């Protein structure tokens, strides 16, 4: 057997495929980021913002299964499945932006990997079946493991608000120094509206960042650890790739068993003990091996069944099904156990039910919300983890905005016209007389009344005519029949800390 050190002929290896693939990956990642950044108020219909969610067959299957509805645009996921039947997991190697992010993350060098036990790579089938069975039982919580939602949600709720905070702070500091003002004004104007906005950083979203960090960090154990062992979309495409017809082929006459292909394979798909054949369920068609092969023994093309690597996975496949059933019991019983958990203020056009069985936790509504009031729910029932809730101290539901319903890729938030949305009751405001300045301190303040966007004002001043001060000693009172729960009163309440007027979910 020839060792690596004995092969100095690197120059002769053409790199065009590697660069082609990197270019395609980069373009898809840029497209993903572009669509994400332009998921902002007012661009509805200009761009196909949901493209990746619609191309993702896992979000399609699960959201339709869980909600028992046909979501037409989600049929685009068939394209990806057809791609898998033709080319195996080429999606993972060429398209998936999460995969690209992992390729760009430093990793344990592939050739340092010991031979990968095929047992561990079966975990992703377990995860996939758990996701599917969870969906069948009406819970989409496990879709947080879908790579597209994972990447979008993390960038939208964690990274961008963090960047916004950091850039805003840096700008203010530099502006105070004076020298760079023209450049700063230009930069601020150029970035505002897509990169910079008024979304605050919601502290519990640190959990999303930590989760994402862990996914990247696992690269230190194995390159593309996530894709090999955990990713449920990888599991789905892996299943389809078992019948794919364009595959990695090794010409046994040319192969000198130098192991270069096995060393360079980022997902450990190549099995030296099996004549250097690649497991189609692991191969992402990155073509690295083809380029690395000093004798050009490797090609990709139609593969006859006979020379395919032995399928040792059936046992594990069955094991996955069994384990997934166990998981399903959890998924089934967790929501039941916490059903008493109180309802939350939800985006207009959604319901507690649609949050559970239609929301894929992608974070598009979080991204599009101009005020940052929509945040992934960190608390409450695990069956509703990271579904959108309104944090009305942080932001408010803008009376002139219906973007979240337009943006939602699954219809978990239904699209309302602006007129409908203005009448959609998402909560009700209540005044805390122990905190309200007019009640507790007898001073003037009617900010909540001033802010109330309802034309006839759902907050009125009462409590008696000519008292003291400008407000005449009047106190704000909520007319609950008129209140739509937008929360601008709570958001703007000048009381420090917890507001003196707070929005609660509407009475059931």
């Amino acid at each position, binding site marked *: 057997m020839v060792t690596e050190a004995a092969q100095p002929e690197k120059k002769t290896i053409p790199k065009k495929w590697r660069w082609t693939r990197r270019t395609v990956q980069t373009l898809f990642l840029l497209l993903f980021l572009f669509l994400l950044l332009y998921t902002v108020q007012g661009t509805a219909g200009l761009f196909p913002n949901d493209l990746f969610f619609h191309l993702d067959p896992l979000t399609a299957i699960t959201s339709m299964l869980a909600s028992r509805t046909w979501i037409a645009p989600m049929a685009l996921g068939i394209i990806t499945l057809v791609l898998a039947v033709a080319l195996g997991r080429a999606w993972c190697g060429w398209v998936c932006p999460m995969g690209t992010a992992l390729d760009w993350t430093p990793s344990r060098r592939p050739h340092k990997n010991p031979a990968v036990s095929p047992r561990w790579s079966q975990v992703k089938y377990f995860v996939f079946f758990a996701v599917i069975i969870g969906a069948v039982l009406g819970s989409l919580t496990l879709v947080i493991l879908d790579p597209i939602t994972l990447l979008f949600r993390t960038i939208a709720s964690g990274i961008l608000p963090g960047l916004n905070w950091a850039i805003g702070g840096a700008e203010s500091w530099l502006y105070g120094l004076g020298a760079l003002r023209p450049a700063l004004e230009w930069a601020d104007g150029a970035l505002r509206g897509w990169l910079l906005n008024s979304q605050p950083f919601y502290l519990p979203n640190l959990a999303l960042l930590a989760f994402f960090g862990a996914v990247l960090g696992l690269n230190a154990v194995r390159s593309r650890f996530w894709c090999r062992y955990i990713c449920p979309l990888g599991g789905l495409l892996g299943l389809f790739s078992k019948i794919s017809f364009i595959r990695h082929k090794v010409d046994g006459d040319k192969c000198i068993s130098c192991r270069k292909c096995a060393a360079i394979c980022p997902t450990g798909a190549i099995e030296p003990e099996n004549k250097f054949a690649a497991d189609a369920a692991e191969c992402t068609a990155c073509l690295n091996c083809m380029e690395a092969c000093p004798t050009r023994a490797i090609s990709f093309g139609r593969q006859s069944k006979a020379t395919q690597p032995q399928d040792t996975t059936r046992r594990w496949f069955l094991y996955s099904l069994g384990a997934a059933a166990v998981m399903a019991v959890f998924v089934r019983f967790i929501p039941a156990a916490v059903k008493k958990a109180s309802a939350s203020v939800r985006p207009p056009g959604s319901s507690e039910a649609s949050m559970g069985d239609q929301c894929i936790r992608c974070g598009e509504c979080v991204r599009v919300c101009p005020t940052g009031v929509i945040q992934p729910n960190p608390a409450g029932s695990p069956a509703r983890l990271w579904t959108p809730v309104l944090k009305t101290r942080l932001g408010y539901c*803008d009376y002139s905005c219906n973007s979240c319903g337009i943006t939602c890729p699954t219809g978990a938030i239904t699209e309302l016209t602006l007129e409908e949305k203005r009448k959609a009751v998402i909560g009700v405001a209540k005044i805390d007389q122990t905190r309200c300045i007019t009640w507790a301190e007898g001073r003037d303040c009617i900010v909540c009344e001033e802010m109330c966007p309802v034309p006839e004002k759902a907050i009125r001043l009462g409590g008696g005519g000519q008292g003291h001060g*400008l407000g005449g000693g009047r106190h704000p009172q909520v007319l609950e029949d008129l209140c739509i729960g937008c929360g601008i009163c709570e958001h703007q309440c000048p009381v420090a800390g917890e507001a003196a007027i707070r929005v609660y979910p509407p009475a059931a």
Partner: protein
Amino acid sequence: MELSRRDFIKNLLRLGSGVAVAGALGSLAACAKESKPTLSPSPSPPGPALTQQPTAVPAPLDKTYLAVARGPSPELIVQAAIKALGGMERFVRKGNDVIIKPNICVAYNTYEYAATTNPEVVAALVKLCLAAGARRVRVMDQPFGGTAQQAYERSGIGKAVKEAGGEMEIMSGMKFREVDIPDGRDIKKWSVYADALDTDVLINVPIAKHHNLGRLTLGMKNLMGLIKDRGQFHFNLGQRVADLTSLLRPQLTVVDAVRILTNHGPTGGDLADVKLMNTVIASHDIVAADTYAATLFGLTADDIPIIRAAAPMGIGTTDLKSMKVEEINV
């Protein structure tokens, strides 16, 4: 465990150089654009020298102190009112930087709902400023309901200003500066939009509206769009707005009363609360302009806490009988 540090660093450098190049290009472009001498002085410690606009321009009694123009065309009545005051040249010199501050408080409805200033009134002022030789005319406000981009669009002001040759500025958080308010009676310091302090000419274009705490929101109340932490103003609204006015002292106030909002202000939303008046009121004296505007609602200076607080501070006068008021019908 060995990470491919080299790849990581390479990626970082690639990313970094991209950002740096973009940044450098940006600075260059910005510098090229701003190569003319800029007006904004380099920052010096906040103090009276920076904050003081000239006090209300004293006008001889034979000159028009306050102009009221009425007619169906907002543009024509603005032109007539400014002409009566001696023309825009009285306020704007050649090469001046001008900021016009309308009321664009929410993005909820179009201007017909009278929550935001009439776009034709704003555009007419932009044109007059440019005709008087202004180098640059910027229009801005900080909406509390909805984004500035959306409010500028829905109010119609964005389009009208651009067509008139002005610029809409999205007010940026970085441009606020805490400054002393030497004449302030309640507040002595506040965080104010730096450009409003540094500009040559500040023109205030409120719309006259109902407001529950202040009775009405007029010229002085409109200046609250130029500060941070507005919620904290309401504990003592009258005095605090008067204190802010003593700092900003706009050279010209034009009250848009083409339509006025008589109830459920400042946000409105019901056309039944809107009254068509086809009127504008213009004066260098913001207190006088507000006092006159209050009369459109059947109120007097004494009814408006902000005017009551401002009158004794020497910011302007409430005595409409002592001044030459020119009323014009166009």
